[in-house]
Protein backbone atom coordinates (compact mmCIF):
# COMPACT_ATOMS: atom_id res chain seq x y z
CA UNK A 1 0.00 0.00 0.00
CA UNK A 2 2.75 2.40 1.05
CA UNK A 3 4.73 1.55 -2.05
CA UNK A 4 1.66 2.14 -4.22
CA UNK A 5 1.09 5.61 -2.72
CA UNK A 6 4.74 6.50 -3.16
CA UNK A 7 4.69 5.31 -6.76
CA UNK A 8 1.57 7.35 -7.39
CA UNK A 9 3.22 10.41 -5.85
CA UNK A 10 6.33 9.95 -7.98
CA UNK A 11 4.17 9.60 -11.10
CA UNK A 12 2.25 12.76 -10.25
CA UNK A 13 5.52 14.61 -9.66
CA UNK A 14 6.93 13.40 -12.97
CA UNK A 15 3.73 14.50 -14.75
CA UNK A 16 4.02 17.91 -13.09
CA UNK A 17 7.65 18.24 -14.20
CA UNK A 18 6.78 17.31 -17.78
CA UNK A 19 3.90 19.79 -17.69
CA UNK A 20 6.25 22.52 -16.46
CA UNK A 21 8.66 21.72 -19.29
CA UNK A 22 5.93 21.91 -21.92
CA UNK A 23 4.60 25.22 -20.68
CA UNK A 24 5.59 27.95 -23.10
CA UNK A 25 8.47 30.02 -21.78
CA UNK A 26 7.84 33.70 -21.18
CA UNK A 27 9.24 35.86 -23.94
CA UNK A 28 12.93 35.92 -23.14
CA UNK A 29 14.30 39.21 -21.90
CA UNK A 30 16.84 40.64 -24.29
CA UNK A 31 19.06 43.05 -22.42
CA UNK A 32 21.79 43.35 -25.02
CA UNK A 33 20.52 46.67 -26.36
CA UNK A 34 20.18 48.11 -22.84
CA UNK A 35 23.76 47.11 -22.00
CA UNK A 36 25.23 48.41 -25.27
CA UNK A 37 23.47 51.75 -24.92
CA UNK A 38 24.83 52.30 -21.41
CA UNK A 39 28.40 51.11 -21.94
CA UNK A 40 29.67 54.68 -22.05
CA UNK A 41 28.62 55.35 -18.45
CA UNK A 42 29.83 52.01 -17.06
CA UNK A 43 33.51 52.93 -16.73
CA UNK A 44 34.73 49.76 -18.48
CA UNK A 45 34.76 48.59 -22.09
CA UNK A 46 33.85 44.92 -21.73
CA UNK A 47 30.08 44.31 -21.48
CA UNK A 48 30.40 41.28 -19.17
CA UNK A 49 32.47 43.26 -16.65
CA UNK A 50 30.07 46.18 -16.98
CA UNK A 51 27.13 43.94 -16.06
CA UNK A 52 28.93 42.10 -13.26
CA UNK A 53 30.49 45.08 -11.53
CA UNK A 54 28.25 47.99 -12.47
CA UNK A 55 24.74 47.27 -13.74
CA UNK A 56 24.29 44.20 -11.54
CA UNK A 57 26.98 44.91 -8.96
CA UNK A 58 24.54 43.89 -6.25
CA UNK A 59 24.71 40.25 -7.44
CA UNK A 60 28.49 40.23 -7.29
CA UNK A 61 28.44 41.75 -3.80
CA UNK A 62 26.21 38.93 -2.61
CA UNK A 63 28.33 36.31 -4.41
CA UNK A 64 31.49 37.27 -2.54
CA UNK A 65 29.45 37.36 0.69
CA UNK A 66 28.24 33.80 0.04
CA UNK A 67 31.78 32.56 -0.66
CA UNK A 68 33.06 34.22 2.51
CA UNK A 69 30.20 32.64 4.47
CA UNK A 70 31.10 29.20 3.09
CA UNK A 71 34.68 29.61 4.32
CA UNK A 72 33.51 30.83 7.74
CA UNK A 73 31.30 27.76 8.03
CA UNK A 74 34.28 25.51 7.23
CA UNK A 75 36.25 27.28 9.97
CA UNK A 76 33.35 27.03 12.39
CA UNK A 77 32.69 23.34 11.82
CA UNK A 78 36.28 22.45 12.55
CA UNK A 79 37.52 19.58 10.46
CA UNK A 80 38.27 16.31 12.14
CA UNK A 81 42.00 16.15 11.54
CA UNK A 82 43.24 12.70 10.71
CA UNK A 83 46.93 12.13 11.13
CA UNK A 84 48.55 11.83 7.74
CA UNK A 85 52.07 10.95 6.86
CA UNK A 86 53.92 13.85 5.29
CA UNK A 87 53.85 13.27 1.58
CA UNK A 88 57.02 12.62 -0.32
CA UNK A 89 57.34 15.02 -3.21
CA UNK A 90 59.40 14.67 -6.33
CA UNK A 91 62.06 17.44 -6.37
CA UNK A 92 61.44 18.00 -10.09
CA UNK A 93 57.81 18.83 -9.28
CA UNK A 94 58.97 21.25 -6.60
CA UNK A 95 61.33 23.04 -8.97
CA UNK A 96 58.59 23.26 -11.60
CA UNK A 97 56.14 24.69 -9.05
CA UNK A 98 58.75 27.24 -7.96
CA UNK A 99 59.11 28.38 -11.58
CA UNK A 100 55.38 28.32 -12.29
CA UNK A 101 54.08 30.18 -9.23
CA UNK A 102 55.45 33.66 -10.09
CA UNK A 103 54.21 33.27 -13.67
CA UNK A 104 50.76 32.32 -12.39
CA UNK A 105 50.68 35.47 -10.25
CA UNK A 106 51.57 37.56 -13.32
CA UNK A 107 48.74 35.87 -15.24
CA UNK A 108 46.32 36.66 -12.41
CA UNK A 109 47.27 40.35 -12.45
CA UNK A 110 46.93 40.40 -16.23
CA UNK A 111 43.47 38.82 -16.04
CA UNK A 112 42.42 41.41 -13.46
CA UNK A 113 43.69 44.27 -15.62
CA UNK A 114 42.29 42.79 -18.84
CA UNK A 115 38.82 42.49 -17.30
CA UNK A 116 38.14 46.13 -18.12
CA UNK A 117 38.24 45.64 -21.89
CA UNK A 118 38.31 41.93 -22.74
CA UNK A 119 37.33 38.60 -21.16
CA UNK A 120 38.87 38.31 -17.71
CA UNK A 121 38.13 39.87 -14.38
CA UNK A 122 38.28 39.37 -10.65
CA UNK A 123 36.75 35.91 -10.42
CA UNK A 124 39.04 34.37 -13.01
CA UNK A 125 42.08 36.14 -11.57
CA UNK A 126 41.18 34.98 -8.06
CA UNK A 127 40.77 31.39 -9.24
CA UNK A 128 44.19 31.51 -10.92
CA UNK A 129 45.77 32.89 -7.72
CA UNK A 130 44.14 30.11 -5.73
CA UNK A 131 45.49 27.58 -8.23
CA UNK A 132 49.01 28.87 -7.53
CA UNK A 133 48.49 28.34 -3.79
CA UNK A 134 47.11 24.84 -4.37
CA UNK A 135 50.05 23.99 -6.62
CA UNK A 136 52.52 25.14 -3.97
CA UNK A 137 50.64 23.20 -1.31
CA UNK A 138 50.52 19.97 -3.30
CA UNK A 139 54.25 20.13 -3.93
CA UNK A 140 54.88 20.59 -0.22
CA UNK A 141 56.17 24.17 -0.47
CA UNK A 142 53.22 25.79 1.30
CA UNK A 143 51.99 24.27 4.57
CA UNK A 144 48.25 24.03 5.11
CA UNK A 145 46.60 26.67 7.27
CA UNK A 146 45.76 25.61 10.80
CA UNK A 147 44.17 28.71 12.28
CA UNK A 148 43.88 31.85 10.18
CA UNK A 149 46.17 34.60 11.46
CA UNK A 150 45.05 38.20 11.76
CA UNK A 151 46.60 39.13 8.40
CA UNK A 152 44.88 36.22 6.72
CA UNK A 153 41.54 37.17 8.24
CA UNK A 154 41.88 40.69 6.88
CA UNK A 155 42.89 39.32 3.47
CA UNK A 156 39.90 36.98 3.36
CA UNK A 157 37.43 39.74 4.15
CA UNK A 158 39.14 42.65 2.32
CA UNK A 159 37.29 42.14 -0.97
CA UNK A 160 33.89 42.05 0.67
CA UNK A 161 34.69 44.96 2.99
CA UNK A 162 36.00 47.19 0.17
CA UNK A 163 32.95 46.36 -1.95
CA UNK A 164 30.63 47.05 0.99
CA UNK A 165 32.42 50.31 1.83
CA UNK A 166 32.09 51.54 -1.76
CA UNK A 167 28.43 50.50 -1.82
CA UNK A 168 27.74 52.27 1.48
CA UNK A 169 29.69 55.34 0.39
CA UNK A 170 27.63 55.61 -2.77
CA UNK A 171 24.40 55.19 -0.87
CA UNK A 172 24.51 58.92 -0.16
CA UNK A 173 24.39 59.52 -3.94
CA UNK A 174 20.94 57.99 -4.09
CA UNK A 175 21.22 54.31 -4.97
CA UNK A 176 23.29 51.33 -3.85
CA UNK A 177 26.30 50.87 -6.15
CA UNK A 178 25.32 53.67 -8.49
CA UNK A 179 28.81 54.80 -9.53
CA UNK A 180 29.29 58.32 -10.86
CA UNK A 181 30.37 57.72 -14.51
CA UNK A 182 33.56 59.77 -14.12
CA UNK A 183 34.96 57.60 -11.29
CA UNK A 184 33.29 54.33 -12.28
CA UNK A 185 36.39 52.84 -13.92
CA UNK A 186 38.62 53.60 -10.94
CA UNK A 187 36.09 52.32 -8.41
CA UNK A 188 35.55 49.11 -10.37
CA UNK A 189 39.29 48.47 -10.56
CA UNK A 190 39.59 49.07 -6.79
CA UNK A 191 36.75 46.66 -6.04
CA UNK A 192 38.11 44.09 -8.46
CA UNK A 193 41.60 44.25 -6.97
CA UNK A 194 40.15 43.59 -3.51
CA UNK A 195 37.93 40.83 -4.88
CA UNK A 196 40.88 39.14 -6.61
CA UNK A 197 42.95 38.93 -3.43
CA UNK A 198 40.04 37.79 -1.28
CA UNK A 199 38.74 35.29 -3.82
CA UNK A 200 42.22 33.83 -4.26
CA UNK A 201 42.57 33.44 -0.49
CA UNK A 202 39.03 32.10 -0.03
CA UNK A 203 39.31 29.51 -2.81
CA UNK A 204 42.79 28.54 -1.63
CA UNK A 205 41.42 28.45 1.92
CA UNK A 206 38.78 25.89 0.92
CA UNK A 207 41.74 23.72 -0.03
CA UNK A 208 44.37 24.59 2.56
CA UNK A 209 42.02 24.63 5.55
CA UNK A 210 40.36 21.37 4.59
CA UNK A 211 43.70 19.63 4.20
CA UNK A 212 45.20 20.76 7.50
CA UNK A 213 47.04 18.07 9.32
CA UNK A 214 48.11 17.99 12.95
CA UNK A 215 51.75 17.63 11.97
CA UNK A 216 51.88 20.85 9.97
CA UNK A 217 53.09 24.05 11.50
CA UNK A 218 50.83 26.96 10.62
Amino acid sequence: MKRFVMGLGALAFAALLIGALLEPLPVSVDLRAAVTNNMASSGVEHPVTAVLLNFRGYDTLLEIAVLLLALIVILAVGIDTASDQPRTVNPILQTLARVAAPLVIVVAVYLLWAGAFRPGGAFQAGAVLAAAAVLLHLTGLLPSWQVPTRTLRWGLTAGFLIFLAVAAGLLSQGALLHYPPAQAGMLILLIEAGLTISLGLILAGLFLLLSREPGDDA
Partner: protein
Amino acid sequence: MSIAFDLLLALALLWSGGRCLSVDRLDRAIVLFIAFGLLMALAWARLAAPDIGLAEAAIGAGLTGALLLDAYGALKRRKA
Protein backbone atom coordinates in the same frame (compact mmCIF):
# COMPACT_ATOMS: atom_id res chain seq x y z
CA MET B 1 34.58 22.33 -40.68
CA SER B 2 33.39 24.15 -37.56
CA ILE B 3 30.16 22.13 -37.58
CA ALA B 4 32.20 18.94 -37.53
CA PHE B 5 34.26 20.29 -34.62
CA ASP B 6 31.13 21.28 -32.69
CA LEU B 7 29.56 17.87 -33.25
CA LEU B 8 32.76 16.16 -32.12
CA LEU B 9 32.89 18.40 -29.05
CA ALA B 10 29.27 17.66 -28.15
CA LEU B 11 29.86 13.92 -28.55
CA ALA B 12 33.04 14.08 -26.46
CA LEU B 13 31.18 16.01 -23.74
CA LEU B 14 28.38 13.45 -23.60
CA TRP B 15 30.83 10.56 -23.66
CA SER B 16 33.11 11.92 -20.95
CA GLY B 17 30.13 12.87 -18.78
CA GLY B 18 28.60 9.43 -19.15
CA ARG B 19 31.89 7.62 -18.55
CA CYS B 20 32.61 9.82 -15.52
CA LEU B 21 29.39 8.62 -13.90
CA SER B 22 29.58 4.98 -14.98
CA VAL B 23 33.27 4.15 -14.55
CA ASP B 24 33.86 1.91 -11.54
CA ARG B 25 37.20 3.31 -10.35
CA LEU B 26 37.21 6.57 -8.42
CA ASP B 27 40.55 7.84 -9.78
CA ARG B 28 39.44 7.35 -13.36
CA ALA B 29 36.16 9.11 -12.64
CA ILE B 30 38.09 12.12 -11.31
CA VAL B 31 40.36 12.29 -14.35
CA LEU B 32 37.29 12.02 -16.60
CA PHE B 33 35.65 14.82 -14.63
CA ILE B 34 38.66 17.07 -15.24
CA ALA B 35 38.62 16.18 -18.94
CA PHE B 36 34.90 16.96 -19.00
CA GLY B 37 35.56 20.35 -17.41
CA LEU B 38 38.19 21.24 -20.00
CA LEU B 39 35.90 20.18 -22.86
CA MET B 40 33.13 22.23 -21.26
CA ALA B 41 35.44 25.27 -21.21
CA LEU B 42 36.06 24.71 -24.92
CA ALA B 43 32.31 24.50 -25.51
CA TRP B 44 31.78 27.83 -23.71
CA ALA B 45 34.48 29.38 -25.87
CA ARG B 46 32.72 28.02 -28.99
CA LEU B 47 29.46 29.57 -27.73
CA ALA B 48 31.23 32.98 -27.74
CA ALA B 49 31.31 33.16 -23.94
CA PRO B 50 35.05 33.19 -23.18
CA ASP B 51 34.43 34.65 -19.72
CA ILE B 52 32.54 31.56 -18.61
CA GLY B 53 35.09 29.39 -20.40
CA LEU B 54 37.91 30.93 -18.35
CA ALA B 55 36.01 30.49 -15.10
CA GLU B 56 35.08 26.91 -15.99
CA ALA B 57 38.67 25.99 -16.82
CA ALA B 58 40.07 27.61 -13.68
CA ILE B 59 37.43 26.62 -11.12
CA GLY B 60 35.53 23.72 -12.68
CA ALA B 61 38.44 21.74 -14.07
CA GLY B 62 41.44 23.11 -12.18
CA LEU B 63 40.50 23.78 -8.57
CA THR B 64 37.69 21.25 -8.26
CA GLY B 65 39.81 18.61 -9.97
CA ALA B 66 42.70 19.26 -7.59
CA LEU B 67 40.35 19.14 -4.59
CA LEU B 68 38.87 15.83 -5.76
CA LEU B 69 42.32 14.31 -6.37
CA ASP B 70 43.48 15.48 -2.93
CA ALA B 71 40.37 14.02 -1.31
CA TYR B 72 40.98 10.74 -3.15
CA GLY B 73 44.57 10.72 -1.88
CA ALA B 74 43.40 11.38 1.68
CA LEU B 75 40.85 8.57 1.46
CA LYS B 76 43.49 6.16 0.22
CA ARG B 77 45.96 7.18 2.92
CA ARG B 78 43.31 6.75 5.60
CA LYS B 79 42.45 3.28 4.32
CA ALA B 80 46.09 2.18 4.19
